[in-house]
């Protein structure tokens, strides 16, 4: 029965043309655009290593992470449709616990977001020669981030009960994490210690760095390629640190889930 409910929610998002565009095509389009701009401005092949495009890899992973974070809009769409209007009462009238609907919707949202991420990975692997780092780590990071995003979305929705407000907050916080990490506007800085925090400890950078730690490009130290790697933050293989980042992400998810549980008791959805 629970599977039927998950399938139902998946079915709905897969028929939503806007969602398909935003999570299916948009990440690809942005990656493609970045790739084209970059290619038009480069000579030589210092950015190529072992057949992979170093810069494209960094860009695509960053977009992958960002869209997992934005994927809260899926759960917000569901909540807006099922909880706000008359449908709330219709669903409650069925012999199912209300919690089941929310849980099924969350799982469907996570699956949708991971599938859209996988599409981005596969396409960019073939088109832009993107390096996949450690695929296991990439998928775990996607899973945790998109689950975290759904919890964050539910939490915001409980407070604001409004789709536009909630989505605006998610957009702003997503881009803010990217900007403050110095990955959207070149040379952006808020002072060393603040920068340090945003370069390492937001969900965005925790996820991105976990992926970066999980693979190796192993360039010749001192070479031009090595310089590029250092500039874009592609560090060398360090599985231990990848797992520490994943651990922190899990901890944040657990805290968010507990917050949803507690807030929802005092102020029901």
């Amino acid at each position, binding site marked *: 029965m629970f599977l*039927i409910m998950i399938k139902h929610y998946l079915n709905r998002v897969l*028929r939503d043309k806007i969602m398909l565009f935003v999570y299916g095509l948009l990440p690809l389009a942005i990656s493609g655009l970045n790739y084209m701009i970059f290619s038009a401005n480069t000579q030589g092949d210092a950015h190529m290593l072992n057949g992979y495009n170093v810069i494209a890899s960094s860009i695509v992973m960053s977009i992958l992470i960002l869209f997992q974070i934005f994927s809260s809009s899926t759960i917000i769409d569901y909540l807006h449709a099922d909880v706000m209007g008359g449908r709330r009462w*219709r669903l409650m009238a069925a012999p199912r616990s209300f919690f089941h609907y929310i849980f099924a919707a969350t799982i469907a949202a996570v699956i949708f977001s991971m599938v859209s991420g996988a599409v981005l990975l596969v396409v960019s692997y073939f088109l832009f020669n993107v390096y996949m780092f450690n695929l296991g780590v990439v998928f775990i990071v996607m899973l945790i981030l998109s689950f975290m995003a759904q919890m964050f979305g539910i939490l915001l929705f409980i407070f604001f009960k409004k789709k536009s407000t909630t989505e605006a907050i998610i957009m702003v916080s997503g881009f803010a994490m990217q900007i403050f990490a110095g990955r959207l506007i070149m040379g952006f800085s808020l002072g060393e210690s603040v920068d340090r925090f945003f370069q390492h400890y937001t969900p965005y950078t925790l996820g991105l760095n976990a992926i970066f730690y999980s693979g190796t490009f192993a360039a010749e130290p001192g070479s031009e390629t090595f310089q590029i790697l250092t500039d874009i933050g592609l560090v060398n293989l360090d599985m231990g640190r990848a797992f520490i980042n994943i651990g922190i992400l899990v901890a944040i998810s657990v805290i968010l889930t507990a917050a949803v549980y507690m807030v929802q008791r005092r102020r029901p959805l």
Partner: protein
Amino acid sequence: MSIASMKKVVKRYGDFTAVDHLDLEIKQGDILGLLGPNGAGKTTSIRALSGLLDIDHGEITIFGKKQTTKNLEIRRRMGIVTQEITVFTDLSAEENLRYFGQLYGLGGNELNQNVSRVLDFIGLKEHAKKKPGKFSGGMQRRLNIGCALVHRPEFIIMDEPTVGIDPQSRNHILESVKQIASEGATVLYTTHYMEEVQAICNQIQIMDSGRIIAGGTLEELVGGMQHEDTIRMTAATASTGLTEEIKAVSGVKDVKVNGNDYVIVSTADSGNLNRVMEIAMRHGGVKSITDEKPTLEDVFLTLTGKKLRDEE
């Protein structure tokens, strides 16, 4: 046999009492009409009855068991048609019916058969594969009702299921409700259209400001009213002689003449129709004559001093 009862049920929103010591009893096979103006508390009562709201006071019993917000077994045997259209616009009519059937635990052949039965019943067989986003208001309403019928509920609650639709769809829905009841289900039907209640309900409860203010069968409600008889007549030829003679009839309180049209008001149950007709025949004949029976609208107006619904 009592299917559902509400005893002294109170539901407050802050300081505001939406449902105020409400008593309601629904017997097996009834089509009970809950009639009331906007804001009377119909929807709130229904939500309480369906176990979707915590009530502040009172007791609700359904199928002989206590209704609570946790009793999923009672819900399985009930069907709810909400006031708003709550079907999923991205799913086809058939997929909507299937999902609602599944939520109530149906599957396999049983689900297929019931979905097909309901599609027939709501007249949407030809549109089964289409999405309700493209349907007319009436078709959406029918699907909305259909979604509550897939699991063959014993007790069906419909909250204003005919709002904003064409007369043809409305008749279709009213006929469907009668058929559902004739097949053994019990129906609670809320509306602010008194014609609907008059057409299909065998029991009527009138609600205002959270309270039941009158109840019974149509005959009981209308029969219990003190009212005036009104006769409308179009005479073949009007004359002062005719008017004077009608005025002289015992019980006649007022006569208004407009061309050949007469409106004659008498005291209740004076039975003046035949007498007036007789007089008019002697004065050149009658084109048409009717006496107006009081309606539920009049009952409501008398009880509350309010119109049942805002002018549309």
